[in-house]
């Protein structure tokens, strides 16, 4: 089961994302932003975090128009799983695959800290058997992480529990499209897959990917 991890210039988390994908028993492969097609046999896509195109213009704006995005849009239409993490979430919103947009944090500062996330909807394929109301501990690290939009336009999967670190509407930390196959989140599950690093709660999302493929 092949999962394409997309690399744009300025993508930073592709290696940790690929590691997390492999950890869930899937086969990661890299796809390059300038390519016209995803690698043959791609069944799912992960768009990892970073600063694609240096956040020039607007986070995710330029990447959302990169050549590789057309094949991702096609795959998403076929209801294949597409996961966007942090900058990947920003790219998915910019590309129209997900509702809303990400604006700068309420503090106007970059924030890197562990966050508690409440599973808001366990009927999407993204929570891997974790029940609604369960709490996941996953780090956030972003400058433009305040999701703004109509939560009813998609399916809110994860909400910040306790303090809302960035001022997002309805405390949205992660949201899926109406069909449920495309999901974006600001927290970094790929950095919460190893007890040595403090949390393994991020594995749920990658297991979900394995279950969905």
């Amino acid at each position, binding site marked *: 089961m092949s999962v394409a991890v997309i690399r744009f*210039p*300025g993508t*930073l988390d592709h290696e940790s994302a690929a590691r997390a994908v492999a950890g869930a028993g899937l086969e990661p492969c890299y796809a390059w932003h300038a390519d016209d097609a995803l690698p043959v046999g791609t069944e799912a896509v992960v768009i990892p975090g970073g600063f694609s195109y240096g956040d020039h213009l607007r986070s995710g704006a330029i990447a959302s128009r990169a050549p590789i995005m057309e094949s991702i849009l096609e795959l998403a239409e076929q209801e294949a799983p597409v996961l966007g993490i942090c900058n990947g979430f920003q790219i998915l919103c910019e590309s129209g695959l997900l509702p809303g947009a990400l604006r700068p944090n309420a503090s106007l*500062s970059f924030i*890197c800290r562990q966050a508690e996330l409440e599973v808001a909807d366990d009927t999407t394929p993204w929570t891997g058997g974790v029940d609604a109301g369960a709490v996941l501990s996953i780090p956030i690290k972003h400058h433009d992480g305040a999701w703004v939009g109509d939560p009813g336009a998609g399916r809110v999967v994860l909400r910040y529990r306790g303090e809302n670190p960035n001022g997002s509407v309805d405390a949205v930390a992660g949201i899926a499209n109406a069909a449920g196959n495309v999901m974006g989140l600001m927290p970094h599950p790929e*950095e919460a897959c190893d007890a040595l690093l403090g949390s393994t709660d991020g594995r749920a999302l990658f297991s979900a990917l394995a279950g969905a493929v």
Partner: protein
Amino acid sequence: MSIDAAAPLHRLLGLTDDENDLIHELLGREPADAELMMFSLMWSEHCSYKHSRNLLSAFPTDGDAVLQGPGENAGVIDVGNGWAVAFKVESHNHPSAVEPFEGAATGVGGIVRDILAMGARPIALLDSLRFGELSSRRSRHLFTRAVEGIGHYGNCIGVPTVGGEVSFDDRYEESCLVNAMCVGLVRHDGMLTAAAAGPGNALVLIGNRTGRDGIGGASVLASAELDDDEDKRPSVQVSDPFTERKLMDCCLELAEDDAFVALQDLGAAGLTSAAGEMASSGGVGLEIALDRIPLRETGMTAPEILVSESQERMLAVIEPPRVAEVIERCRRWDLDATEIGVVTREPRLLVRFDGETVVDLPAALLTDQAPRYDVPQNAPPERMALAYDELPPVPGDLVAAWRELLGRPNVADKRWIWEQYDHLVGANTVRRPAAADAAVVRLPTGAGLAVSLDGAERHCEADARGGGMAVVCEAARNLAATGARPLAITDCLNFANPEKGETGWQLREVIAGMSEALDAFEIPVVSGNVSLYNESATRRIYPTPIVGMVGLIDDVARTVPLALGPEGHALALIGYGEPRLDGSEYLGDDAGLPPRPEPMQDAALCRSLVDAAADGLLAGAHDISGGGLATTLAESAIAAGHGARVTLVGGPRPDVALFGEGGGRVLVSATDAHLDLLAERLPEDIVLTRIGVCGGDELSIDLGDRGVSLDLAEAHAAYAGGLTEAMGA
């Protein structure tokens, strides 16, 4: 700096009359303007270390683990299984004082390219910062913007900022310090050199276009005192971390495919320094066509192109058959790559521009023939330890004093800083900032690499030799407290003007003290940097050597946190020496004479801690430094989320036991049985003193005739809010 238009060019460029005469003598002719400009930069303190090189030779630089000592872009040490780490710390003090955001950001960018030039993948960043008191609006501005600059750059290039340190003192009000350290990972057989080789090989410039930014930075900013910042604003470089990231990805790909004969970053003095060092260290010449260099601005002159400090550029030597492939690979990363010259057999730098030869001189003149100066050695009056009647009275309310100390910016929680830094990217950060005495990142071998960055400037002011020892010993204890065996250091020597007063003597004494401690630990200096002239008309900084130490934890799962062990665990002090208030954070100045460390005892203490950690005996360990035992205990308790009950032998002054500093002492928590084991193994001169037990909602310390008790929630509030309150946020 006032510009006297009538002064001769060499003086405007910062060269002395004697140096100008020497240049004439070495060349046997009048230098061309471009040549004189190159000399002025390469012979500046920043590039040539002309006032410090004679003293630096005292450092030990050899060791079994050393794969590359001083002389390349960074030092490299073996970390096992064919892997090595390259690391270096460098200052960007003066640019940060002029424009803190860009100054700090480009400081990070520069040190990252030094690591990249070794063929290493950057895996960790740390920063050491010094600013004036936060009651000063100017210092708040410099501090806030420097932190933003570091975050902006580090976050965008995807290298985790895993640690560092900061303190505030009026001595840095007009000369702030921004030192950045980078650590990179490289296979032994993947190490690169900056030495150009192979006449006929091509010289390829990769990365950003060249503009007028940073012109004269190396000589104007880093080698003279700052008097009037306004004049120097255009000299500060502008950062472009996005290009840096592409440069990293691209160069590492090319290095992986053995595309480089040599690689060098363009830092201070730009192309001049890069070309001069590549040619001179390779014993070859370089012929450069300036017309080929892609420019960002029109009308640039040859000297401007030669000394531009435009960031995010690397200079590579490539074999001719691979040039097209290298340029193609760079294009794939949207990077400019241009063949700008060729390696020649005769060891000369030959630079052509617009049909004319603008530079034609032996490269070694720029690098090896720079003058060296001995600096005046004026010892300050010897200090005496503070006598009992010289100390301020013991506070009536020791708990209030404790709370106040916890909230001081120098002691308080630095979360406001490190939450602005991505300290996790790469998913290898085993110990996050403030979770252990050193940052710990996972290596591919399964070992942990521990890194700490430390200073001891008040101690250095009071006793330069003792302070030099103290900074090395503290760095080592910080590593050992996590379970890491120290391997090597990099250092940045931040000092005032060495040509005046006692600075030259302090520099020599600090180096002597550091060297003595390094010998005790049997570890070398493998890279470093010197930043002099950190003084203004009203203030001279403390002698501030910053030591970046790296060490190994064989099994990364055995890393020891600084938090107290679970409730019921026993608490003990391990180490040697007695605390004093001289030079302490509690007294808040450098008065008196702090106790001089005993490096051999510190080395023994560190070995004991490393062994204990490897055997899983320690639940928590925290070095006792600024703020003394009471502060250290509070930090460990806050991290653990529960308190402790402690009994100390009180002296005539309870504040000495609570807040005194000195000696080598580490607070550890462990089960009783493990403490017994540990006590049995300790060498004679290292003492283990049981002082209490972990648990409860309070920090209570019994001093015999009196006791102090602080609610943990109150301690936490004071500690958590101290920094942001001082900033008025």
